[in-house]
């Protein structure tokens, strides 16, 4: 325990060290720490925000998908209806056409039958005249007996 001038020297040295620390060390490091604290806090809040936004986006996407699915099914339904309509219409058209054609054919057939009947009638008339002339062995005046012959032909 012997005091000497060392005491004063150490006091001065201590004071200088304190001054140096106050001036050059503490503020810089402290500033860096505080800035980083702010950055970290900002980062954390940003992450939280992003998380919430992501959640929002997720629900929005799910919503959109649901809507799209609904629309798609609507479109499919409509298409099916349209297809059914077209099919029905085609079927109806076809039936109409068939009926028309059938009618035409029937008319044709009727006309042809009529024609054939006419022809047959004429031939029968002619054959009857021929047969009669052969039986009578003489010329029958076709004009005088025309009424008779026509009657005959009508009866065939």
């Amino acid at each position, binding site marked *: 325990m012997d005091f*000497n001038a060392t005491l004063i020297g150490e006091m001065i040295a201590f004071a200088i060290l*304190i001054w140096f620390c106050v001036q050059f*060390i503490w503020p810089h490091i402290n*500033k*860096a720490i505080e800035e980083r604290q702010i950055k970290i806090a900002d980062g954390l809040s940003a992450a939280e925000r992003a998380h919430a936004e992501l959640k929002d986006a997720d629900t929005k996407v799910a919503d959109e998908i649901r809507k799209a699915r609904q629309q798609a099914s609507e479109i499919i339904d409509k298409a099916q209806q349209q297809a059914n309509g077209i099919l029905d219409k085609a079927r109806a058209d076809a039936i109409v056409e068939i009926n028309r054609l059938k009618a035409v054919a029937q008319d044709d057939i009727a006309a042809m039958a009529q024609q054939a009947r006419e022809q047959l009638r004429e031939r029968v008339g002619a054959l009857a005249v021929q047969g009669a002339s052969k039986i009578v062995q003489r010329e029958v005046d076709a004009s005088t007996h025309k009424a008779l012959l026509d009657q005959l032909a009508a009866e065939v």
Partner: protein
Amino acid sequence: MASEPGGLTEYIQHHLTHLVPQVGKDGFWAVHLNLDSITVSLALGVLFCVWFWSQARKATSGVPGKGQAFVEIILEFVDGQVKDVFHGDRSFLGPLALTVFVWVFLMNAMDLLPVDLLPWITEKFGIGHFRAVPTADVNMTFGMSITVFLLIIVYSFKAKGFGGYMHELFTAPFGKHPLLWIPNFALNLVELVSKPVSLAMRLFGNMYAGELVFMLIAGLFSAGAGLAGWALYGMGIIGYTVWGIFHILIISIQAFIFMVLTIVYISMAHDHH
């Protein structure tokens, strides 16, 4: 080295003698300096400044390097201690506490060097006495504690003004009556003076005792001859290791206590009554 004539007592006495060259003439104006304490403490102070300053200079608020992170851990630890005790602007008290903590710790840590290492080196340069631990020197610890004491006074004046401080010194704790002025002042004086004294003596006592125990254990290394000597040598190694590990705790705690009490004393001066 204890085998030199004179044995353990002389060995220890030798180790407890400061390097004191005398500057100037004899008599009242003779200036004695413990060159060993001054050299080691200044070297460690410069180490502290350069180390922390180099980290502070390139301190980034982005991702810190390991060196910066380490410095920041110390600084935040100290800042937390100051924040707990002192409620005000920490732009002076913070650095003060940091300086106290790191400097005292570094000086205490000189105790962990082998007790003969620095004296052995200086002996090569013809310097006989060299004590490596500045905090085991009363001049060192009182140098710091008196500076702290002056800061207590300064803070008291700053916080309460000259009149307010004088009023407090003479009227607290007993009362305003003029007859009580002297007892009040005497009590406050004791309280005031006991602060730097206890602060310095605690650190000095711990470090001095620690150093002494290291010397005693080191004495075991050359305490005997033959088989018994080797047995003592082994005990010396074990003892030195155990005490060294325990001493890591002591030097940290002493540095911490010095720092905390510095903060407490100054904050008491700052916000009082």
